Structure formats: structure tokens, C-alpha cells
């Protein structure tokens, strides 16, 4: 029902002739923007698929529902403040969260932001909830789920922007988190983190037709995992986590090439590469992704994005994902136990009798305002 409201909003937007992105200028300095996505999706496997989306073999109308509202305010020439509230796929509409809230200051090519900020690990991670901003219906799950769905931190960042020449600019963003206690839920498992330290750097090289993004981060964290089906906790303390990502996109006229790889110090190596071609309002695409972590899996995604208006896009997408290797047990101090987590892109252990792959069909609607 809630999804129907979102669909109604989307439909209303399509009826506004050449409704304008971006944003509604409330005043000269105050800007309101919004984005949203919703889908009709189904797989052919009973086991829930994709973190925070949990798609099964039943037609799902709100597995991908996302709504974001953003206010930007500029004041005193060099200051800005911004708030973004989102209902992510895992949230109820009645339980949205503050995805960012910061005050920023800029001076010449330097700027800083303090408050709640997006974690700039991946090429698209700062706008990963904005379906209209990228070609696929969902960001490639192999890479974008690598940090357990943690998308923001409370802390500070500094930005240095430098034009290397007329055609290339460089942006360097070191960031530092204050202590925090982020949470994540994957399948039946709740992850409670206690962040002692998080620092990192994101570097972007921007050309007219390309962008290269590199990020590295170090976190010192306590983790506690609770599972509904396994009556014990698995606390780990003072874990040192190092993550690295490298991605690039290149526009060759109407052709868009994109690839990204993620690695960490626990032997994870996830990557994807994709090709899209824009012809008028149609953008057909194909993407291949591979995950090598506690389990190994791969997926192939193909679809067409339709730009219905400059603000509204629709994706029709097919994805095949397969778990290539996984362990049915895991080791604990008490001995081996049945695995309580999903393998590959699946979020729970396989439902009895289900195969280890899935075909997923999606019709996705996206809008920006």
C-alpha cells in the first residue's frame, strides 16, 4: 500500500510537463531536492536475495522502495548546511533515517564538512540510493554490499580540489569518524559495531569524459553478531579492518564503460564491469560481477533503462546470480555449526530443496526532483 503512494507520486510527476530537475528553489539560498525508486521484482528462488532487499520467488512490490528528501542551505557566502533523510529499502516509510546532516565551509579550493557524512568508498556510494543517477536498477551488489550496508559515519572530512589543467581536476578527501555504533541487519543476523577509529581517504581524478575513484579506509571496531536462529553471540573486539576500492568510468560518445574492484584484509576481492550504450531515450546495458569472500559467487545483469522524461527513468532488468563455492558449516569455539548466514548474494541459508542460483526479474521506476 505504501509503495502505491510512492507510485502515485511518481505518476503525478510524469504528468508535469518538463518538470524540472534539479530541485525546488525555496529561496535563492535554500534548495529542496528529492529522489525515489520503487519496483516490481521477483526471483525463482525461495531463499531471500540481496542485502536489505530480500527478494524471493513471491512478487515483491516494495523490496526496492526508496525515498529521499534533501534540503541544502547556503549562507554567509562560504558556509553551507544540508540534511538528507531517506527511507532506504530496509526502512519502513514510518521509520526513515538521517543519512547526512552537516555544516560545511569552503575557502578557495579547500572545504570541510562536519556532522553525519556519506562514506565515500565506492564510485557511486555517495548517491547509491538515487536510482536515476546510474544505469542499472541496483548498484552492482557484489561490490556495493561489501561494507555490510554501512553508508555513513559521524565525523569530519576535508576536501582539496585542484585543477591539474583545463581538462582534468583532482579531488582529495581525507575523512575521520568520531566514535559511533552503526548497526546492520543481514538476513536473520544483526550486526552491532562499536567504532573506535575510522579514517580514510578518497581520491577522484575527473576528466571531461571519465572519472577514476580510489578510496582506502582503516577501521578499528568491535563487532557483535546476533542471530535469531543461533542462540549465541559472536563478539570480536579490536578488529582492524583495511578496505580499498578502485573504480573508473569512461564515456566514449554514447558508450559508457565502468568497472570497480573492492578488496579488504580478510581476503575479500569483489569486482564488476559493465557496458552501457545510450541511444535516444534507451540505454541497454550488461554487467558482470564476481564476489570472492567467505563464499564465491558471480552474476550477470542485463537490461534497458528508459528515460521517460528528463526526471523519470524505468529499468527492465534480468539478473542471473549463482553461488560457486560456500561452506555449509562454520567453526566456533564450541565446534562446527551449521552456517547461519547466506552465501553469495543470498541473505539467508538456502531454503531446503532450493538450488544455489537465481533468476531475478525487475521493473524499476526512478525519479529525481
Amino acid at each position, binding site marked *: 500500500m505504501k509503495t502505491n503512494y510512492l507510485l502515485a507520486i511518481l505518476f503525478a510527476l510524469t504528468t508535469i*510537463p*518538463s*518538470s*524540472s*530537475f*534539479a*530541485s525546488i*528553489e525555496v529561496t535563492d539560498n535554500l*534548495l529542496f*531536492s528529492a*529522489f525515489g525508486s520503487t519496483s516490481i521484482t521477483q526471483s525463482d528462488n525461495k531463499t531471500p536475495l540481496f542485502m536489505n532487499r530480500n527478494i524471493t520467488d513471491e512478487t515483491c512490490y516494495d523490496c526496492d522502495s526508496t525515498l*529521499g528528501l*534533501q534540503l*541544502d542551505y*547556503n549562507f554567509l*557566502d562560504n558556509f553551507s548546511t*544540508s540534511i*538528507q533523510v531517506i527511507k532506504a529499502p530496509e526502512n519502513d516509510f514510518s521509520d526513515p533515517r538521517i543519512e*547526512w546532516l*552537516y555544516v*560545511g565551509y569552503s575557502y*578557495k*579550493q579547500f572545504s570541510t*564538512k562536519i556532522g553525519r557524512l*556519506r562514506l565515500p568508498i565506492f564510485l*557511486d556510494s*555517495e*548517491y547509491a*540510493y*538515487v536510482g*536515476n*543517477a*546510474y544505469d542499472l536498477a541496483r548498484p552492482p551488489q557484489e561490490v556495493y554490499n561489501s561494507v555490510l550496508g554501512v553508508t555513513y559515519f559521524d565525523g569530519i572530512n576535508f576536501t582539496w*580540489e585542484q*585543477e591539474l*589543467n*583545463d*581538462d582534468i*581536476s583532482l579531488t582529495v578527501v581525507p575523512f575521520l569518524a568520531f566514535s559511533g555504533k552503526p548497526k546492520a541487519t543481514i538476513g536473520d543476523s544483526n550486526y552491532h559495531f562499536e567504532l573506535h577509529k575510522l579514517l580514510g581517504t578518497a581520491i577522484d581524478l*575527473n*576528466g*571531461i569524459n571519465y572519472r577514476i575513484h580510489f578510496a582506502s579506509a582503516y577501521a578499528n571496531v568491535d563487532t557483535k553478531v546476533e542471530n535469531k536462529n543461533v542462540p549465541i553471540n559472536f563478539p570480536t573486539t579490536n578488529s582492524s579492518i583495511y578496505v580499498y576500492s578502485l573504480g573508473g568510468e569512461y564515456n566514449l*560518445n*554514447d558508450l559508457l564503460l565502468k568497472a570497480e574492484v573492492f578488496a579488504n584484509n580478510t581476503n575479500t576481492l569483489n569486482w564488476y564491469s559493465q557496458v552501457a550504450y*545510450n541511444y*535516444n*531515450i534507451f540505454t541497454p546495458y550488461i554487467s558482470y560481477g564476481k564476489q570472492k569472500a567467505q563464499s564465491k559467487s558471480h552474476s550477470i545483469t542485463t537490461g534497458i533503462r528508459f*528515460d521517460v*522524461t*528528463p*526526471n523519470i*527513468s524505468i529499468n527492465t532488468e534480468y539478473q542471473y546470480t549463482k553461488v560457486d563455492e560456500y561452506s555449509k558449516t562454520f567453526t566456533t569455539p564450541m565446534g562446527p555449526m551449521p552456517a547461519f548466514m547466506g552465501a553469495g548474494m543470498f541473505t539467508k541459508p538456502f531454503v531446503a530443496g532450493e538450488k544455489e542460483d537465481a533468476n531475478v526479474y525487475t521493473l524499476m521506476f526512478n525519479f*529525481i526532483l
Partner: protein
Amino acid sequence: MRRKLIRFHLGIRGIAVILLMLSSTFANAKQDQIAIFTATKVFTSLSSGKAKMLFKGRIKRLNNKKIVLLDWPNGSKMKKQFYHELLGQSEARINAYRAKLVFSGKGVPPKIVQQNNYLAVEKYIKGRPNSIGYALKSMISKEFTILYVVPAGENL
């Protein structure tokens, strides 16, 4: 014989006149290229690369001064032509690209004039020295500084 010569001269003159008319039409067509312009003399001319980086939102300052970009209304012929010729991209692709900047907190979209005409663009630019807009070169008043002329068909 003399009559033939006169006819020949008239023929040559006729062709010359036609050629002149054609060249004048061609010159007018060239004048109808789109130009990027501003009201201040502080900014000088832009290279092709810098003009593209600017309207792609890759750079937000010129001469260390914050600038405000101005767009024609969405769906307008001028906006479509401008982004097609400058960046080779449709309005939808540009909007998707701008969404990346806005929803990552890395930029603000260009201001959009309410009316789909040059006078509205001129009025806005005149009132804000750091604003940069675009229009047909032939329409831009001489009081403004032309920063870059988009070569017609550069990205077609």
C-alpha cells in the same frame, strides 16, 4: 557577338549574386552558434575543455571565484541543443549526471530561468556578475563578455 558577351557577363554576375547571398546565409548560420557568456570582465575566454568541465560540474570556480551557472528551462530547444553540441549528451543524461552531484553533496544544479527567452537569461546574468549562461551568439548584447563559442556540430 557583343550580345553574347553581355549575356555571359549578366550570367556571371547572377551567379556571383547568388553566391554572395549563399555566403551571407552561411555567415548568419555561423553567427547562430551558441556562446557561453557572462556580465563580468573578470573572467576571460574559456578553452573547450574548461567550458565542458564547467557545465559538467567538474569545476565550480573560475579565477578562484564561485560561479553560478544558468540554464534555460527544461525541455527547451536551446537547452537540448546546448548540451548536445557542447557535451554530446541528452537532457536526461545531463539530469542523471547532475543528480550524482546534488545527491552526493558535491554541487548545486544550475539555476533555471523561468521564461524560455533570451531576455530572461540576459536579465539574470546582468544582475549577478558571477553568473554564466548561454544563448545564441547573435543575440548576446555587446556589453557581455563572450567566454566560449560552441563550434556547431562539435559533438553531433
